[in-house]
């Protein structure tokens, strides 16, 4: 079902689930895959080579952006509003094609990926969208279940995984509500649950805590951190200065579509 070169990230099938529930100490004993030195032989997860994206009426959203994200890294994407963060996310999902440059995800060049393989790419790439992108006529449960259905999970699997992940993001009691019956933050958490539920080797989160209160945000960040510790690569666009400064992870800063800073243990700037 899943592409081998992407799935091999999850060494054991249950690894991510264990990480979601298990205590941090257990995961901490494992080799930290976020350290690129520990896995020099592996191909990087994401490669941007001089990527330029120009929207129709001469809007340059991304200008020759180049960076490499290794497997297992945790990367913050920061920059002022309109600097091109969401554009990077959309390029990774192959929702858009770059005007120029090359994008490689999990060893595959996106421009060469056949149309029929795109769904496979997206199933291996959990995404929290800035505008949530929930299916408006489905309940929270069905929204999350859909991400499992598309990859052919059985009903039994779905019934086991979905309530677990919804409880994890604090929506155990809101499973049967449709999006417009949920608060902004609750909708955002449904989107987060959907992105996590099938334990993809790559997680991209576009402002996943923008509508969440500080406490819930911290909970989500801890979750992301634990997922990252199991080997999942996490790319997260955010405006939360406090969070970025506290985590001290790699930071890629954009300004008007140009990568202006790329620090291993950076702050918001």
């Amino acid at each position: 079902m899943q592409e081998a070169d992407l799935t091999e990230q999850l060494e054991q099938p249950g690894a991510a689930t264990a990480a979601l529930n298990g205590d941090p100490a257990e995961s901490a004993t494992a080799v930290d895959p976020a350290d690129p030195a520990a896995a020099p032989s592996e191909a990087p997860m994401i490669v941007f080579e001089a990527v330029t994206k120009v929207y129709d009426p001469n809007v340059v959203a991304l200008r020759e952006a180049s960076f490499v994200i290794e497997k297992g890294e945790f990367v913050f994407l920061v920059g002022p509003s309109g600097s091109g963060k969401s554009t990077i996310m959309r390029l990774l999902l192959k929702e858009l094609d770059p005007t120029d440059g090359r994008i490689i995800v999990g060893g595959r060049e996106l421009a060469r990926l056949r149309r029929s393989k795109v769904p496979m790419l997206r199933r291996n790439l959990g995404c929290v969208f800035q505008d949530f992108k929930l299916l408006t006529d489905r309940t929270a449960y069905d929204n999350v279940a859909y991400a499992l259905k598309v990859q052919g999970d059985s009903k039994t699997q779905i019934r086991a995984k979905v309530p677990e992940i919804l409880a994890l993001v604090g929506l155990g009691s809101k499973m049967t509500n449709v999006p417009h019956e949920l608060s902004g933050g609750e909708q955002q958490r449904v989107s987060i649950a959907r992105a996590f539920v099938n334990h993809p080797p790559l997680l991209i989160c576009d402002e996943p805590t923008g509508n969440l209160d500080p406490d819930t945000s911290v909970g989500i960040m801890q979750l992301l951190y634990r997922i990252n510790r199991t080997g999942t690569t996490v790319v997260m666009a955010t405006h939360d200065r406090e969070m970025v400064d506290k985590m001290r992870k790699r930071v890629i800063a954009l300004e008007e579509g140009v990568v202006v800073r790329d620090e291993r243990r950076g702050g918001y700037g």
Partner: protein
Amino acid sequence: MRARLFVTEAFRSIAANLSTSVAAVMTVLIGMFLLGLFIALGSWVISWTNHVKKDLVVDVYFCTELTCGTEATTKEINAVKLQLDQNPDVKSYKFVSKDDAWEEMKDRFPELTENAPRNPLPASYEVIPEDADQVQAIAASLQPPPVGVETVKYGEKKAERVLQVAKIIGGIFLVGSLILLVASTILIANTIRLSIFSRRREIEVMKLVGASNWFVRAPFMLEGLLCGLAGSILAVVLLLLAKELALPGIMGRIESPGDIQAWNFPVVALILIVMSLLVGAFGSGITLRRFLRI
């Protein structure tokens, strides 16, 4: 297993978008009802023109003293009979003797026949063709008239007129049915397009979370199929009601000869249903293409 998933999805979608589903069913219902009604009307009118065509016969008049100077002999009459027997265009024929003709004339014009010295009318064959279009051919096959035959008549003017009107009526109903067919296809496709259009964001999201084109398409097509099925079955029920309730009311008032046949209802119903299913399913499938390019 996957099929069951799609069926569940389709029903869920119909329930969730009840408003658009009802609109789609209603459009199918109206389109198919109109088409069915038109076919019914058309087949009835065509059947009626066929009935009228049955009046088209070829009359073979034999000689009388008055016309040829000598009456036709039995032998001459039998020769014509033989010729008619061999003609494949002839369906049947009826011999009208001089006496039969005179009796008929007496009934119609008692004043005239009362004082006539003797029977001046000819014997004749009334020939019914296999097909009304063949009257001319049959008449031509008796040209020049065999011995003992005075004249062969087939009411050229009336025949031509009836045949032409029948052809035009047939043409009108063919063209009309085609127009209605195209019209209801467009209408149904239109409704489908609008209802899918109002859900384009949903389709976009499905694609972005990793659904393959077929995974998105199958429930939509199934939904179209189900709406088509519901609409056309309702249309057939309405037509059945119309047939059972309205038709006897109309028919009872015209003394219609038994050979004006009602249309073949089950066949028409089947055609309508199958058509709706196809338009529903493929209409959805084709419309989706535009939104699946993400």
